[in-house]
């Protein structure tokens, strides 16, 4: 019975409207979705490189303690977040479209990054949906992602724009 229910909830499409530079969270009974969007004054290839170089992630991103593994289609990575540095999230790279879209996740949720080329700039969007039939039981124990999403986006913007200004 459980195996039939889980896919139904995971396939639910997020309708959260991300705002520029501000994280927005939509809560439902069986899921929670947080999203943010930001214009980054840098080429998408720079943003993409920052998002897919696991070894270098913690240097510029204050929300990440470490990522072990190679961020490539189908690979598994182990991520430790500053939200709870005692836990290691084992995630699979579900989509890997260079300079456009990166998705990683596990049974409970998916993190989606999209990059849209806007000439010399990149429109960056990040969203994460967590949920499932048991979600109401542990929802209260999961901290808000809002501050972490904003920090992640600020760090990414700052680092990518610093790189873009290299002479």
């Amino acid at each position, binding site marked *: 019975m459980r195996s039939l229910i889980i896919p139904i909830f995971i396939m639910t499409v997020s309708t959260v409207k991300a705002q520029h530079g501000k994280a927005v969270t939509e809560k439902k009974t069986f899921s929670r979705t947080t999203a943010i969007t930001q214009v980054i004054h840098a*080429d998408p*290839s*720079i943003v993409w490189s920052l998002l897919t170089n696991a070894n*270098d992630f913690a*240097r510029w991103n204050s929300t990440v303690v470490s990522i072990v593994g190679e961020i490539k289609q189908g690979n598994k990575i182990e991520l430790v977040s500053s939200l709870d540095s005692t836990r290691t999230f084992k995630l699979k790279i579900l989509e890997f479209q260079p300079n456009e879209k990166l998705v990683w996740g596990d049974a409970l949720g998916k993190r989606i990054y999209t990059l849209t080329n806007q000439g010399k700039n990149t429109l960056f969007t990040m969203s994460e949906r967590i949920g499932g039939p048991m979600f109401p039981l542990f929802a209260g124990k999961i901290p808000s992602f809002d501050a972490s999403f904003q920090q992640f986006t600020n760090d990414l913007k700052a680092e990518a724009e*610093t*790189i*873009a200004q290299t002479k």
Partner: protein
Amino acid sequence: MTIEEFTTEFESIRPQLKSFVLRMTASVQDTEDVIQDVWIKATNSLTTFRADSSLKTWVFSIAGNLVIDMLRKQKRWPEEVTDICKEAAMQNPAHFQEAMAIVQTSEYAKFEIKEHIAFCFLCIAKSLPIEQHLCLLLKEIHDFKIKEIAVILKTTAPLVKYHLHTGRQKMIELFHGRCALINKEGVCHQCTEINGIFNPGQSAEEAKQKLKMVKESEKGDKQHLFDLRMEVLQEIDPFSSSAHELQLHHLEHNRRVMNKYLENNSE
């Protein structure tokens, strides 16, 4: 361009090219092989040179691609390369005897701390991913522009900026954590230790204070200190510096130690 004209130009570029290839490969033999291959490839395809870029950029592009092909088959050196090699040297009295013989017989064995600064960077930079290593050397040592490096590596300017920035940041943090010349908490004193061996009558403190990098270390500006480190590297040519015979002997030792280390630590 005729072969004769190319030869004249190539000879003027050769010292820089050799220095660049050695800093990538850490092997005199591999450097000689690459330079020879660059010459052959360049002369065979001289008619394809369109002067869209300078001849120097074109020649470095050929060399860069040969180096990439070579290094992709090899493992990167570990960040703690100098610790591992020091340990190996301490257990190898013959290495010091050979070095002392070079000091006594060669006019190119006048050790100075800045020689070791350049040597240390050469070794530790081999822990970087190839693209970061190449971009760093081409920009910081050989003064190529971002667009020229993009031509050399057959990539885009934004990606050159990315590799350059990440490589630079990595090296800044590595040296800040290790190098006692710029950080009192730094764990590595090898340059002053070696200075004590080859210049026993000299005060290491006085020798250190001659370096701008050391003088300005109190200010704690990591980016500026890295720029000063790069100035030392620009000044020291590994094939013609006043201690190059001693340093190349030392490099060959480290290369052999690293080959063995990587072989023993392969998965």
